[in-house]
C-alpha cells in the first residue's frame, strides 16, 4: 500500500503499522532497539544490585522507601499502559478521535507518575539520600532516574505526535509512528515492573 493513499475505515488495513515498507522497517527496527534498551537496563539493574547496600552511613532503602507513594505511581503507570492499548485499538479501527482521547489519558497518567517520582526524589534528598552521598545513591538515582527520563521522553514524544497530526487524522505515514511510540510506552512500563520489584519490594523486605 502507498503511504500517501487516502483511506476510509473500510480500506484501512488491519495492521496499518506494517502496511508499508517504511512501516515494516520501523516496526522491526524499534523492536530491535528495545532489545538494546533491555541490555542497557539489565546493566543498570546489575550495578544497583551490587551497590544497593553500600549506603556509606546514609539511610538504607528499607528506611527510605514508602509503599503508598510508590504503589500509587505503579498503578498510574500500569493503567497508562492499558489506556495506550485502547488508543492503538482505536487506531486499528481508523477512529482517530478516540485514539487521540486515549493517548491523551495515557499522557495524563504518565505525567502523574512523573510528578510522584519527582516528589519522591525530593523527599529522599531531604532525608540525606543524594546522588553524591554514597554508591547506593549513585546507583539508585541512575537506575530509577534513567527510567524517569524515558518516561519524560515518551510523554513529549506522544504529545508531539498528537499535536502534529491533530488536524490531518490517520494515514499510513503516521500510523507506524503512533504504534512505535506505544511500543516504547509498554517497554517503559515493563521496566517499571522490574524496578518496583527489585528496587522497592526487595528493598523494603530487606
Amino acid at each position, binding site marked *: 500500500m502507498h503511504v500517501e493513499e487516502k483511506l476510509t475505515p473500510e480500506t484501512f488495513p488491519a495492521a496499518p503499522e506494517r502496511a508499508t515498507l517504511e512501516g515494516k522497517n520501523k516496526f522491526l527496527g524499534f523492536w530491535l532497539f528495545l532489545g538494546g534498551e533491555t541490555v542497557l537496563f539489565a546493566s543498570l539493574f546489575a550495578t544497583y544490585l551490587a551497590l544497593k547496600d553500600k549506603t556509606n552511613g546514609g539511610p538504607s532503602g528499607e528506611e527510605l522507601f514508602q509503599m503508598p507513594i510508590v504503589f500509587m505511581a505503579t498503578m498510574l503507570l500500569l493503567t497508562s499502559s492499558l489506556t495506550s492499548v485502547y488508543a492503538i485499538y482505536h487506531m486499528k479501527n481508523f477512529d482517530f478521535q478516540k485514539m487521540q482521547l486515549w493517548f491523551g489519558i495515557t499522557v495524563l497518567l504518565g505525567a502523574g507518575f512523573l510528578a510522584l517520582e519527582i516528589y519522591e526524589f525530593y523527599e529522599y534528598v531531604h532525608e540525606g539520600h543524594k546522588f553524591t552521598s554514597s554508591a547506593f545513591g*549513585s546507583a539508585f538515582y*541512575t537506575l530509577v532516574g534513567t527510567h524517569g527520563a524515558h518516561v519524560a521522553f515518551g510523554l513529549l514524544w506522544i504529545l508531539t505526535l498528537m499535536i*502534529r497530526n491533530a488536524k490531518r487524522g490517520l494515514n499510513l505515514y503516521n500510523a507506524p509512528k503512533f504504534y512505535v511510540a506505544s511500543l516504547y510506552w509498554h517497554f517503559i512500563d515493563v521496566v517499571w515492573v522490574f524496578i518496583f520489584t527489585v528496587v522497592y519490594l526487595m528493598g523494603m523486605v530487606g
Partner: protein
Amino acid sequence: MSTIARKKGVGAVLWDYLTTVDHKKIAHLYLISGGIFFLLGGLEALFIRIQLAKPNNDFLVGGLYNEVLTMHGTTMIFLAAMPLVFAFMNAVVPLQIGARDVAFPFLNALGFWLFFFGGVFLNCSWFLGGAPDAGWTSYASLALDSKAHHGVDFYTLGLQISGLGTLIGGINFLVTIINMRAPGMTFMRMPMFTWATFVTSALILFAFPPLTVGLIFLMMDRLFGGNFFNPAAGGNTIIWEHLFWVFGHPEVYILVLPAFGIFSEIFATFSRKRLFGYSSMVFATVLIAFLGFMVWAHHMFTVGMGPIANAIFSVATMTIAVPTGIKIFNWLFTMWGGSIKFTTPMHYAVAFIPSFVMGGVTGVMLAAAAADYQYHDSYFVVAHFHYVIVGGVVFALLAGTHYWWPKMFGRMLNETLGKITFWLFFIGFHLTFFIQHFLGLMGMPRRVFTFLPGQGLETGNFISTVGAFFMAAATVVLLINIVISVKGEKAPADAWGDGRTLEWAIASPPPVYNFAQLPLVRGLDPLWLEKMEGKKELTPAEPLGDIHMPNSSFLPFIMSFGLFVAAFGFTYHQETAWGLPVGILGLLITFGSMFLRSVIDDHGFHIHKEEVLELEKKGANA
C-alpha cells in the same frame, strides 16, 4: 571551465556529502574518516615504537607516553577499525542483497556523523590540556586517578557519542538484511560478508549498551560527583571491568567477523570456486557470536574471581577455537582444487590464514587461567592481540580496500603497487609483533614507557621498531596507489572478471538507485550462476518503473554537532560558568533537530522511468 565554476563544484560536492543519505556516499565518508584516524593511530604507534627502540630512551616520557598509548588503542579500535568495517558494510551489503538502499537512510547518515563528531571530540583533547591516559580499557581505578587534565572526560564523552552512532548502524543493518532482500535472496543464499554483517550487527546491538552504561558511570563519577567506582563511598571499581569487557570481548568479534566475511568473499572469488562448506560457515559465524558473549571474564583472571569462575571462563574461551577452526579449514578447502588467481586481495587472504592462526593459538594459551597469571600484562598479550587485530582485521581491511575499491570509486588500484604494499606490510607486521611474544615471556611488561639495558630486551625491541617502519612504508605506498588511481584504469561492472555476488552485476560505481530493476536471485552466488548459463545480466524480478528515493538531509549533521557542543559544556561545567549553559544548549540543538525530524514529513521523491533509462544508457557507455 572557469575557476569560479570549479569552486562552485567543490562547494556543491561538499554540501552533497554533508547531507547525503545514500549508503554508497556514506561508505565513502566512513572510508575517508576511518582512514584518517587509521593514519593518526598509526603515527601514535610509530611514536610508541620509537620510544621503545632503545633502553632508557627519552623520546616520549611518562605521562605523554601514557597518552599516546591510550590514544593509539582507542583510536585504532573505535575510530579506525570500526568505521572502516562500516565503510565496507555500507558500500557492499545493500548491493549484495539486491536492495536500493538501507532500511533507514536518514539514520545511516546520523550514525556516521555521530561517530565522526565523537572521534573529533576525543582528539580535541590533544589541544586542550592532554589526551586520556588511562589505557584504552580505561580501568576505573586509573581513570579516576587521572586528575591532571580532562583527558579521560574526552574519552567517556567522545566514545559515548561515537558509540551511539555504532548502535544506530547496527540496528540499521539488521533491519536492512531482514527486510530488504531482493526476491529469491533467502537467508541461506546470502553472501558470507552479508551474513557476517548480520551477525556483527546483532553483536553490536547487545554489546554496546553495557559500554554506554559503563561510560555513563565513569562520566558521573568524574564530572557529577557520583560514587560508582569510589571505594571510599562504597563504590567498586570491578564493576567497570565487568561492564567494559561484557562489551569489549564481543567487540573483538564485531571486528573480526566482518574480516572473516571479507576473506570468505575473496577466497571464493579468486579460487573461482564456490565457498567450501557454506552452511557450516554460517553456523560457525553464529556460534562464535554466541560464545563471544560467554567469555568476557577471561580478561579478568587475575582479578580474584576464584578458581570456579576462572575455570568456567577458561573452558568457554577455548571452545571458540572450534568454530574458528571450522572456518580456517573451509577457507583452505575453498582454495583446494580451485583455479587460483594471485591478486592483491588474494595475497592478504592467503597470508591471513597462518597469521591469524598464530593469534588464535596464543589466544588458547592465554585462555588457560593458570598460565595466564604468567602472561598477564606482559608483551605476550600485546603480541597476541595484535596478531588477531592486525593479522585478522587490518589484513582484511587492506584486502577489502583493494577488492572493493573499483566498485566504490570506479577505478582500479594498481596491482603492482598493491603487491608492494602487501609484502611491506606482511613482513613489517611479523617483524614487529612476532618478537614481542618472546619479549613478553622474558618479562617485559606492557604499557611501561621504558626498559633498562642489560636485561636482554634491546635486540628484540629494536627489531620490533624496524618492523613498524615497514608497515608505515606500506601505508605510504597504499596512499600513492590511491592518489594515482584517480587517473587509473576505469573499472567495469565485474571489475575482477570473476565476481560471484550481486554487487559485481551493476556499474562501478553503481548508479544512485543501485538496481534499475530488482534482481531475481536463483541461488548462492547469483551472478556466477547467471554467467555459467551464458547470460550477461541478472534476471529482473520486476518491470522497469519509477524508483522511490529518500531525501537528503542536513539534520543528521546538526543532531551530532549538538552532542559535540554538549560534550564540551559538560566537560568544563565544574570549573567554568559557561560549561552548564553550553551543555544545555548542545542538548537543545540535538533534541530540537530531533523534534524537527519528527514534525516535518519526509516522503522522499521518485526518479522517473525515463530518467532511469537514460542513466542506464549512460552507465552502459561509460
